[in-house]
């Protein structure tokens, strides 16, 4: 009973992602599984020229995406450099604030994550627009209207809180007598900070930096306001999705998923290795101390095949089966794609003729299923985008 529920729950979590990943390999213009056209990597590469002559960019050929990624990286770096020191300072000062004030101080510190993201974006933009207006023509006016600069400030506003919380958690386990011991041994207050506190906090600094970067990289709600006329990865994705869903996005998502999994696995492996090393040093110590057989026995754990292996084997079996099916039915390669395109082109010509004879149908076709929100369908960027990513059906 519970098992079924867990299965459904995780199917809900992973199902959409898996299906999306599969659609990245379908050569059809619309991300789908059925009908399956051809197995292809085109959406990871150059994309395709559609049968009506429009260019559908793939991951490699999409300069807009590349620009977005670059600004996202710049913003991420900026946010990390600001929010980690801010979060650390705020967390350390929390330990020094009088207990009567601690609640108020804490509340102010966590307020930004309770604000809706859009509000942080808007408030930053309106303020800096005003500052830029006051500043005349010079430097201030320039940076006040610089989307990247504003986005760094706006994101730092709430990402600092996440950093703050990470540092607070680590500081709660800090043994304050360490500071006293260092002072007693003649260290100055500044030396205590750099030689005792900062080394102690360094794991938190690392995780705060990672978290800050990831939150910054994938933020949309705040960024969409503060970025002004620039584009980040997320705003590019949003505009693409609004204008019609393309398998190139599936390919992008799959790339991100793969990177995530690799990072997660690496992290897990490193963590286990560190744990093992620590356990070994402890074990060695225990062995040195006690030649007692009982203790030695306890540390001789048997070798077990990890359960994960079964899962990997299952995946391999399925993948092999899928691949053989694809090869058997000649669903891979250029010949398949060419055949499919040819067929569609002829169909498209037919459709075009019908369209010309009936304008009403034309409207229905362009809205509907994937054109998206007609109310303000063009808000996400310039019209030229539309040419690269037409809504296809």
């Amino acid at each position, binding site marked *: 009973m519970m098992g079924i529920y867990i299965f459904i729950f995780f199917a809900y979590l992973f199902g959409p992602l898996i299906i999306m990943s599969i659609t990245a390999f379908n050569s059809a213009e619309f991300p789908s599984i059925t009908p399956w056209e051809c197995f292809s990597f085109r959406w990871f590469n150059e994309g395709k020229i559609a049968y009506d002559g429009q260019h559908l960019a793939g991951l490699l050929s999409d300069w807009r995406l590349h620009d977005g990624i670059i600004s996202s990286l710049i913003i991420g770096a900026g946010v990390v450099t600001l929010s980690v020191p801010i979060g650390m300072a705020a967390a350390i000062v929390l330990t020094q604030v009088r207990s009567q004030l601690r609640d108020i101080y804490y509340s102010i510190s966590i307020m930004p994550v309770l604000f809706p993201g859009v509000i942080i974006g808007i408030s930053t933009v309106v303020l800096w627009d005003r500052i830029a207006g006051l500043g005349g023509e010079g430097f201030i006016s320039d940076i006040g209207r610089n989307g990247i600069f504003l986005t760094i400030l706006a994101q730092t506003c709430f990402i600092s809180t996440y950093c703050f919380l990470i540092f607070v958690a680590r500081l709660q386990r800090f*043994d304050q*007598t*360490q500071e*006293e*011991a*260092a*002072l*007693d*041994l*003649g*260290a*100055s207050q500044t*030396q205590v900070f750099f*030689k*005792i506190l900062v*080394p*102690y906090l360094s794991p938190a600094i690392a995780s705060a930096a990672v978290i800050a970067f990831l939150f910054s990289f994938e933020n949309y709600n705040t960024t969409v306001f503060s970025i002004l006329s620039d584009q980040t990865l997320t705003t590019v994705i949003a505009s693409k999705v609004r204008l019609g869903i393309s398998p190139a996005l599936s390919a992008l998502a799959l790339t991100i998923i793969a990177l995530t999994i690799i990072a997660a696995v690496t992290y897990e492996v490193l963590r286990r290795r560190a744990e093992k090393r*620590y356990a070994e*040093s*402890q074990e*060695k*110590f225990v062995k040195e*101390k006690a030649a007692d057989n009982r203790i030695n026995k306890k540390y001789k754990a048997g070798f077990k095949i990890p359960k994960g292996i079964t899962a990997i084997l299952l995946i391999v079996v399925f993948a092999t089966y899928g691949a053989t099916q694809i090869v058997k039915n000649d669903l891979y390669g250029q010949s398949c794609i060419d055949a499919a395109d040819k067929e569609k082109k002829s169909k498209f010509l037919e459709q075009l003729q019908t369209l010309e004879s009936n304008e009403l149908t034309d409207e229905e076709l362009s809205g509907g299923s994937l054109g998206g929100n007609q109310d303000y369908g063009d808000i996400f960027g310039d019209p030229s985008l539309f040419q690269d990513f037409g809504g296809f059906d």
Partner: protein
Amino acid sequence: MSADVELSDVSVTFGSFYAAKNVNVKVNGGEFFSFLGPSGCGKTTLLRAISGFQEPSEGKVLIDNKDMSGIGPNKRPTALIFQNLALFPLMSVSENIAFSLEVRGVSKEERKKRADELLELIALEGQGEKKVHQLSGGQKQRVAIARALAVEPKVLLLDEPLSALDLKLRQRMRTELREIQKRVNITFIYITHDQGEALTMSDRIAVMNEGELEQIGKCDEVYNNPLTPFVATFVGENNPLYGKVTGIEGDKAQIETADGQYLAMMNDSKKLNIGDESIAFVRPESLFIPRDGDSFDNKIDVNIESFEFEGNLKNFYARLQSGAKIKFSVPNAIDTSSISSGSSIALGFDSSKSVILPKASLAID
């Protein structure tokens, strides 16, 4: 090398609470001095006042006759060994020991040399590269001492550093600490709630209760000649016999209790008058089962309730006629097989081994 430490009328208050009240002590240079008292008696507060973590609310701390007010812990000629040792877990043993040199900007070679010297002093040669968590409890203890000694302090302050160790190790560390103190010849100020520790290691001890000093003196002095009922019962075990003073002869006083009259020594400083409510104390080992030829001037009838075997001693728990409990110990060398639970016997003790003090509260221990 060593320095005198003087606390002059030191009080430390937290709000309206007195953690220490009008404390006056002079610790001599090179002395091993202990503050002994139950937890919460203010001894740690005093230690923090000496090391500079806590400014006294009133009074002064003088080290080498210099007033220490306004001087931070990093500027005082003291080093503190914390109860939890506070070794730096991210540094190696050598780095821990040489930390005080590092913050003073001493060169790396110099630091290494000094660290090696100190490692030798604490018998941990060649273990400097280890991480702190790879050491045993006793080794950590010694590293903490070496780290403190690296500052070349004039006074070493120790805040119950042995409390986390098991019994055997604790006993060994007592001897070791004493030896280290003799070798480096600096003032040790030791804080403990364990009277055994204080008595075995110290030259002098100060007994504290509720922020106030009860008694300062050499160990045997405090043990044999307690000035207050608190000291009498906190340092070692003692049987109280409550009553009224009925007569005074020289330095001895007669006390009338519900179970009879006893004679006990009076302290010089606390004069008693006839009719005063008072307590006579007699230690378990001063009570004995009289044999022919023993001389004693007090006799006490008891009814044995139970006994326990402690190795070198056998402890008996008995009651007087009034119902008051009393404990006495007999060396294992003496045959006590005839004494069983429920039997009534007479015990004796000599007035010179008993102390009479004005009535006051005892240590609840």
